[in-house]
């Protein structure tokens, strides 16, 4: 029972972490909460559904194409809704993000429909027994492995690559980064592309796991992932990963023992953490104000 809840929690948490990374990366560079990210994730699930339909049971091509398409969607959202507001107060950009969120979810309802759609089978399900009462299936394993691989790749990208360095520099001081010859438009585009493509991957994984894709799925998942990002310390990449895992595990245990209070307990944990560490668990120095 406990092992089973832990497995479910880690799996759910790794998906939260993938989505949370999109919030935290955009916050790091742009200093606002991209509330449209949950809906970008939802579109990722729809892209995955269509791709799985046309490509059939090939997981890797579906994953890669989903990530590319969702990444492009994220870049487009930025161009349309945020780029014209580059120098506007952050509250204005956040409001624009809320508007974009509504536009994206309504667009999905208009173009695709408001029903819940099944995800075409990418894999046949096999169960593996882990001890007397715990079961894990191959889709859960795939979700977990994919999430971990993507996070390792992201870490490598941020720490080692040229644009990763530029993203870190811009998180610390955007103006100086620009004056040192970094093209901020490109950095912002790369940030949105990477963050959104991770959201798209999460959309595919969740769609596969629950075998359901629908136009409002971005709302709850987005809110949870946002909570996870805050919990870990927004702006911090390891924070988002850890916050996602923690939230997923807490939520599952709460659901198992106090089923009606599942979400309430998840948010209670966030409030408790923030009371003692207002910057989140991985309080990144990155966004401390320069004196």
């Amino acid at each position, binding site marked *: 029972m406990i092992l089973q809840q832990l497995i479910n929690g880690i799996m759910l948490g790794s998906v939260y972490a993938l989505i949370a990374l999109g919030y935290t990366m955009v916050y790091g560079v742009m200093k606002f909460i991209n509330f449209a990210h949950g809906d970008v994730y939802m579109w990722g699930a729809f892209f995955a559904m269509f791709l799985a339909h046309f490509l059939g049971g090939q997981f890797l091509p579906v994953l890669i194409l989903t990530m590319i398409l969702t990444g492009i969607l994220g870049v487009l959202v930025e161009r349309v809704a945020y780029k014209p507001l580059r120098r506007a107060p952050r509250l204005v950009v956040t409001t624009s993000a809320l508007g974009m969120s509504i536009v994206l979810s309504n667009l999905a309802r208009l173009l695709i429909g408001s029903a819940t759609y099944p995800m075409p089978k990418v894999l046949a399900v096999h169960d593996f027994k882990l001890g007397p009462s715990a079961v894990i299936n191959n889709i859960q394993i795939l979700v977990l492995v994919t999430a971990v691989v993507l996070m390792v790749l992201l870490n490598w990208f941020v720490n080692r690559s*040229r644009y990763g360095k530029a993203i*870190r520099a811009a998180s610390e001081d955007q*103006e100086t980064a*620009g*004056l040192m010859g970094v093209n*901020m438009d490109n950095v912002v585009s790369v940030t949105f592309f990477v963050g959104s493509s991770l959201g798209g991957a999460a959309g595919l994984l969740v769609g596969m796991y629950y075998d359901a894709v629908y136009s409002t799925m971005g709302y709850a998942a987005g809110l949870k992932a946002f909570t996870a990002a805050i919990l870990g310390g927004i702006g911090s990449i390891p924070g988002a990963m850890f916050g996602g895992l923690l939230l997923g595990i807490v939520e599952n245990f709460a659901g198992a023992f106090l089923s009606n209070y599942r979400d309430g307990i998840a948010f209670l944990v966030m409030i408790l953490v923030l009371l003692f560490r207002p910057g989140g668990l991985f309080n990144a120095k990155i966004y401390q104000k320069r004196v």
Partner: protein
Amino acid sequence: MAILEFERASVHFGGVRAVDHVSSEIEQGKITSIIGPNGAGKTTLFNLITGAYKLTQGDIRFRGQSVARLSPHMVHSLGIARTFQNIRLFSSMTVLENIMISTHSKLKPKVLGIFIPGTFKRVEENMKGMAEKVLVLLDLLPKAGYHASALSYGEQRRVEIARALVSDPEIVLLDEPSAGMNVREAKELIKFISQINKDLGKTVVVIEHNMRVVRHISDKIIVLDHGCKIADGVSEEVLRNPKVVEAYLGHSRLTTYAHVR
């Protein structure tokens, strides 16, 4: 030959004329100092050159081409690099990374190449090579792996200069490089600035308050006060100019006879 020309350059913030109708020239291959009391508009002028602020009026031309409408990274890629009055290193990154950042505008391909593994590796190594060369020049190689915030003040200043030099710019803008330095460090700085100018062949523009430094290095001095240019020319001449003396020391019978030493 003038490499950088100001033509009635002005920037107004509301009613404040931070820089007002400044016309002057920076000669290629020379060291030019910009001096003036606090709030005279010296750093603002740097911000105008580098595209951090936009001109309200007038024009600034680099090799005859206007830079007034360009964004900061474009100005940087043309070959104008700078340091800051208050150190502005990326404190959570290592010294090497700080310097690698500044090679961005010199690198190709711009964006899509980051997803091609071979190109990616070549570009990264290229960046690192450029950064290490500058670190050797500034005697900072042993510190390459340190976090920028772990370095001493003087070292951080050197990292800033390294960061300005790594992109091999035509013009290096130094904003109060001797700030916070003692006499010995200032002397070393004088030597180093001449080295940048003579050995590396860079055009150098320096904002300085330390008259000892200004006197030693300048081929030309531009004096600003309240956003306006009050004098420019060869150093001794400018420093004896009564208007300059007045801007620095105020007007009284005593200062009429004073020389800025």
